[in-house]
């Protein structure tokens, strides 16, 4: 009987030890969570602060997030000031030195990404301009590979004994991106050069990768809600360019784009900007599967 109890206790300690070995990662967005799960596999326990259907610029810094951050071994951020309105406050309240900027557990996923729309001058009169460049870079799957590399580097710093495991997962992830990119590019090939309109300036990386041309935005300036003057301009542009589609995101209301749709016949399509935007976008690959299929459906 005593032996049985000792065995159960040892088993419990063993289970706890295995559990304790998992690297606790907090990411700002669900895309980073998905990629971290691909690279970290069963060695990581990942949670995301923002949901996939939420505007990542405007996340409310709820104190409950501090609990997660206080225990985290690693923090992964999109960077480029995307989360500037909420993540610095949460980080400094976390009392966790491991994940502060400059520490091994702080991973800026944007490092090494070739950025688009880097402004030469900064002026808030132009709206919500990001001083480092457009931060929606994860919407190009090639940039997903760089993000995965940054996450892999971060995990290796924290758990060097699992270096080979993480790198093998990175290779698998990269190979899958290459394979899927061929599929996505082939699907989008007939629509190369196609002109569309978007609600907010967050699609430039997707646009460049898949050869679309975004003619204009419903927002007159980034972050400024559509105005009647802007909508009149958009209606004229949609008509003159025979634009068939207006793309938007789950966290914007579609009332403005529906006005344009009614006037022009162009369809409003809500695409996912992040994993979890819709129920069937469960990981980073699903995101492009969903967006590309949805876009093609809209165009056909």
């Amino acid at each position, binding site marked *: 009987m005593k032996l049985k109890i000792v065995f159960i206790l040892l088993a419990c300690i063993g289970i706890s030890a295995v559990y304790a070995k998992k690297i606790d990662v907090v990411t700002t967005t669900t895309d980073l969570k998905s990629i971290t799960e691909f690279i970290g596999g069963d060695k990581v326990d990942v949670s995301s602060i923002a*949901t996939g*259907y*939420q*505007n990542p610029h*405007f996340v*409310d*810094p*709820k*104190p*409950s997030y*501090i*609990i997660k951050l*206080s225990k985290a071994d690693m923090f992964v951020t999109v960077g480029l000031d995307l989360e500037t*309105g*909420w993540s*610095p*406050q949460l980080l*400094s*309240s976390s*009392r966790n*030195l491991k994940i*502060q*900027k*400059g*520490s091994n557990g702080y991973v800026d996923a944007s490092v*090494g990404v*070739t*950025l688009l729309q*880097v402004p030469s001058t900064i002026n*808030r009169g132009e709206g*919500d301009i990001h*001083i*480092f*460049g457009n931060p929606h870079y994860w919407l190009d799957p*090639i940039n997903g590979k760089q993000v995965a590399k940054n996450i892999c580097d971060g995990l290796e710093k924290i758990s060097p004994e699992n270096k080979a495991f993480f790198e093998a997962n990175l290779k698998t992830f990269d190979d899958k991106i*290459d*394979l899927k*990119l*061929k*599929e996505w*590019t*082939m*699907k989008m*090939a007939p629509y190369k050069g196609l002109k569309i309109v978007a609600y907010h300036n967050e699609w430039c990386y997707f646009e460049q990768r898949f050869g679309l041309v975004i003619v204009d935005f419903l927002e007159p300036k980034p*972050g*400024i*809600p559509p105005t009647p003057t802007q909508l009149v301009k958009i209606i004229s542009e949609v008509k003159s360019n025979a634009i068939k589609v207006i793309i938007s995101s*789950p*966290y914007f*209301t579609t009332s403005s784009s529906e006005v344009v749709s009614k006037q022009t016949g162009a369809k409003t399509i809500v695409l996912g900007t992040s994993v979890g935007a819709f129920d069937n976008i469960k990981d980073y690959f699903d995101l492009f599967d969903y967006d590309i299929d949805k876009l093609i459906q809209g165009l056909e």
Partner: protein
Amino acid sequence: MYCFIRTAVMAALFLSVSVIASSQNDSIAKADSGLLKQIEQQLNSKETSPATVQVRTAPSTLPDISVIGDFQASYRNNVKRNFDAGINEAELSFQSVVDPYARADFFFTLARDPVTGKFSEDLEEGYITTLSLPFHLQLKAGKFKSAMGRINPVHPHALPFISLPTAYENYFGEGINDEGVSLSWLVPNSLFYQELVVQVTDGPIDNPSFSRSVGNTYLKLAHLKNFFDLSANATLELGFSGVTGANSYDFRTNIAAMDLTYKWKPVQFNTYKSFTWQTEAYFSNADTSKNRAVNSFGMYSFINFQFSKRLFFTGMYNYSNKPFSASIKENSYSATIGWYATEFQKIEIEGKTTSSNIEKEQNQVLLRWIFVIGTHGAHQY
């Protein structure tokens, strides 16, 4: 022979990849080989070419700097000067990490004297906060807004109304903003967020309830914050505060306070609609002599509706005694409409009426225009 086998293996691999790929989607099966080659070339060139180093904004050790302008215009009845307008306050902030172990925040204010119209400078807050103490502790030292309830820690420009709640003003004036040390502990509670803050400060100079003692009586404050996620869209905060310190009678005032805040903000459309209900109550026990103590009470409650991305409404009710007179009873009602152009600019207009059992009814209409230049840190949730 070896070459033949290698070619065969390569061909088999290529075929199998093609088969896998073709099974994934019909469109790939129809793909022309020229386009596939082009894609492969693109992928390969990305992998083999040396990484291009893109110049990012030059690194800087300068702190985040911002200036907040607060223009106000007002009409008040039952006063000598009914109309007034001008820059009420300009706040200059500097915020940055000091090193890997601490951050520092400074807020200077240039406030306008409504009588003389002259501006006087003051250090509103200036403190260092540790980032790395063990046991989830955080130490703050300097001059700071005390962790008393929900209104006191917030800078007025970030509040969704213009005039401070009557009950709060009656007990704390413009707030407890004092020099000393603050230790906060993140309670290891995995069910909900709990934070205990203990502060010892010199004691405020101009405050209805407290005075700075010339002796060894310091202002001591404790605040327990409990924060619950009711759902993805709704939260509840329940706080308890206790503060004790010297008063203007050279005796002691003790104040116990409770705050309750319910917030509803749909995660998906959090920039378009929200609702907040916030209530705070103050229970004061002030000794005015060895044999006399005054027990008094004050409370406010407000609701804040966000109707659209830019339009907000706040309605507030106050009931309050005064710290040294429980017989004074004041009631006030206010309504504020706010138009938020962007995160950097808002205009609010407020009507407020205050009645009391000792004074004539006072009515006021206020207009406030807040504008920010530079980089200003986020405010607490």
